[in-house]
């Protein structure tokens, strides 16, 4: 009977993976700053972060495929530009051929930033179609987050391309949180343990 119960437990674990509750993926640098871990507060903060990451201003350049997305309906980018190995496009279709260091004035003109690109082919950092748990675990995993440790993750929210989401040029909607709210939620999520929601 004990053996049977043990087997059921193992099989259930194999199917459902880690316990279906808030879970914490340790991240490089974490051990140096043992802050108060608070899974409830962390998960609550990530739910706010998730709303921003799944907004078209963020998600459109984190597509599941190799073509960036466009506009608030996240359709495939006109002309079907490709990711390319480095995330900067291919041949005569490189991002910076049209996307300037700054937004181009006017409606339906190319938005711009000095770092305009998709994630590279060997580290796609897909947001599209990810549920909150999947996205949180991906971001906290050094092997799939662009090799960012904790300090680099915190810094990433201050990156110029991330900030562009709140200065996207004419005619583009803004993420549901303002930038300060996003940074506060991002920092809280990571500093309280970087927990992933149960689903």
């Amino acid at each position: 009977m004990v053996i049977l119960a043990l087997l059921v437990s193992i099989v259930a674990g194999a199917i459902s993976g880690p316990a279906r509750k808030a879970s914490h993926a340790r991240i490089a640098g974490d051990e140096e700053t043992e802050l108060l871990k608070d899974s409830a507060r962390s998960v609550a903060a990530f739910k706010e972060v998730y709303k921003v990451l799944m907004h078209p201003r963020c998600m459109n350049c984190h597509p599941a495929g190799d073509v960036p997305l466009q506009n608030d309906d996240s359709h495939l980018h006109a002309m079907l530009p490709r990711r390319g190995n480095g995330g900067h496009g291919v041949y005569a279709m490189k991002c910076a051929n049209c996307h300037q260091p700054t937004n181009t004035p006017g409606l339906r003109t190319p938005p711009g930033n000095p770092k305009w690109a998709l994630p590279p082919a060997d580290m796609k950092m897909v947001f599209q179609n990810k549920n909150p748990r999947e996205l949180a675990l991906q971001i906290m995993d050094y092997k799939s987050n662009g090799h960012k440790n904790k300090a680099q993750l915190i810094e990433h929210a201050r990156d110029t391309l991330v900030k562009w989401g709140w200065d996207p040029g004419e005619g583009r909607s803004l993420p549901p949180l303002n930038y300060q709210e996003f940074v506060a939620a991002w920092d809280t999520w990571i500093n309280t343990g970087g927990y992933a929601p149960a689903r």
Partner: protein
Amino acid sequence: MITLNINKKNYNVDVDQDTPLLWVLRDTLGLVGTKYGCGVAQCGACTIHLNGEAVRSCVTKVSRAAGQKVVTIEGLAEKGDHPLQKAWLELDVSQCGYCQAGQVMSAAVLLKENKAPTDADIDAAMAGNICRCGTYLRIRDAIHRAADIQRKGTEKT
């Protein structure tokens, strides 16, 4: 005053630094081979090379080109005998011709980076250049032909 290097020549132009490079090329310098199509980087007619990349000059501020190397269709080959130009004539690619300078400039970047492009490579590279006459199939054939010409030219030397 902004100093530009275009087709290996230096020019000093007295224009606002936010002026689109296309305006400077055509209106200030008289290099009218590069065409205005849409003005919003949607059609590719204005494609030039900026440090070897196929940049859309209609949305590129002239300040971005200051001190950089710009090549237009007039400077692609000194004698107008770039393999693409030879192939274009051989296959009689152009119909109205309006988009063709941009097409050739984009194709030149492709051939520089890929000496033997497949149809898929060509389609991926040329997807940003629109032709209202629909000469796409001849363009694709001409790029293959230009790759042959380029390869044979390299073999001879």
